[in-house]
């Protein structure tokens, strides 16, 4: 049974789901909506209301009878389906919400009318989180020890988005940087990051039209 993910052709909230599906080598396909006027016309013009979704939105996931929206609900569903759940459910939920919060900060300032004004506050928040995550990670190797979980793919993606917005914050953050490198070196993730089609090379982080699209860096590898 093929799992279908639907999202805009950007990273934003879709990328953690894509990372999970690649990591577990799932049988999956994507309906990619171009982040353009035409794409928006396609989505809002008919596709959105035609998929049998309870609360139509992007991203969406269709897996047989299951039809989901809300990015975190999708990540949790994939986590349960592919055995990527934290053993400690309580700390799992806590870390998941903190990592979701990282993306919320980015959304707020990228889509607000006051990017430059908001940025210093964002940097302060990120620096606080980096210190907290350093303690939470401990020796790792992953957020919950040896077992890779869906939260690791959320963290991997959203920390990278934060790094693009505030690279200086990550100077000397050895514990977090080491952790991100370990996730980047996971089987199938490593090959993906190095491939020509990797969305880090081809997709903007946010909508191309917002205050901070986060277009792909020049990758010198």
């Amino acid at each position, binding site marked *: 049974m093929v799992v279908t993910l639907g999202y805009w052709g950007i990273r934003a909230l879709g990328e953690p789901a894509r990372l999970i599906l690649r990591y577990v080598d799932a049988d999956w396909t994507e309906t990619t909506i171009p982040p353009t006027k035409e794409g928006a016309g396609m989505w809002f013009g008919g596709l959105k209301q035609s998929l049998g979704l*309870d609360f139509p939105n992007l991203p969406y996931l269709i897996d047989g009878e299951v039809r989901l929206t809300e990015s975190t*609900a999708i990540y*949790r569903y994939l986590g349960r389906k592919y055995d990527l759940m934290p053993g400690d459910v309580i700390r799992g939920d*806590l870390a998941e919400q903190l990592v979701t*919060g990282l993306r919320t900060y980015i959304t707020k300032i990228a889509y607000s009318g006051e990017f430059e004004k908001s940025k210093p506050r964002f940097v302060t928040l990120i620096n606080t989180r980096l210190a*907290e995550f350093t*303690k939470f990670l401990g020796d790792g190797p992953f957020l919950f020890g040896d077992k890779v979980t869906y939260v690791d793919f959320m963290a991997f993606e959203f920390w990278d988005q934060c790094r693009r917005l505030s690279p200086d914050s990550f100077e000397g953050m050895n514990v977090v940087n080491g952790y991100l490198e370990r996730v980047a070196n996971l089987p199938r993730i490593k090959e993906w990051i190095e491939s020509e089609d990797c969305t880090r090379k081809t997709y903007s982080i946010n909508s191309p039209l917002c205050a901070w699209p986060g277009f792909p860096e020049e990758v010198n590898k």
Partner: protein
Amino acid sequence: MELGYWALRGRGEPIRLLLRYKGVEFKDATIPVTEEGMGMWFGEIKENLGLDFPNLPYLIDGDVKMTESLAIMRYLGRKFDMMPDDLAKGDTVELVVQAQRTDLATLSDSADFENLKEGFITKLKVFLGRFSKFVVKPFIFGDKVTYIDILAYEYLDHIRALTPESFTGEVSEYMQRVADLPNIAEWLKSDECTNKTYTINAPFAAGWPGFPNKA
């Protein structure tokens, strides 16, 4: 059990409401939304509770020390057998309800509140239509009251204070069924009910603090 939050409804009230519904004895470590209270929280308490990610609300239950309002609600949902059977559907509706409250917060914090309010209400009506269809009845997932019903009731009540005319028919009836639950009904009618005294948002919110109506 100890719950810490500001003396307002905001993200803490669903947790308080769930604990009251289950008749749980808890220490309501409320922090006044005053200069003194903020000085106390940021100056003395915040970094000294042993929290991984210090913030409000926090919950301390024996060895368990939590922050993040949704993570706390899920913890209590599991502890008190208030989880939906269909976890995937539960997650989706939990998060759309959360998103509505976040949209209210964004609107309430905005100095441009008057101009943005209409757009918020338009989106809200779409959501309420979908939510009404989703509710199995009597509660979101049928007969079983879940933590998501408590979350939804409280957050919808916040939004209803802003735009009461948007809450009619099925949504209004759903909210009344939750409000009529044992312990919740008594709380809402009691003299101590802080809905009479607490703001919905921070009292200094630039757009809409949500002061309590004189009942």
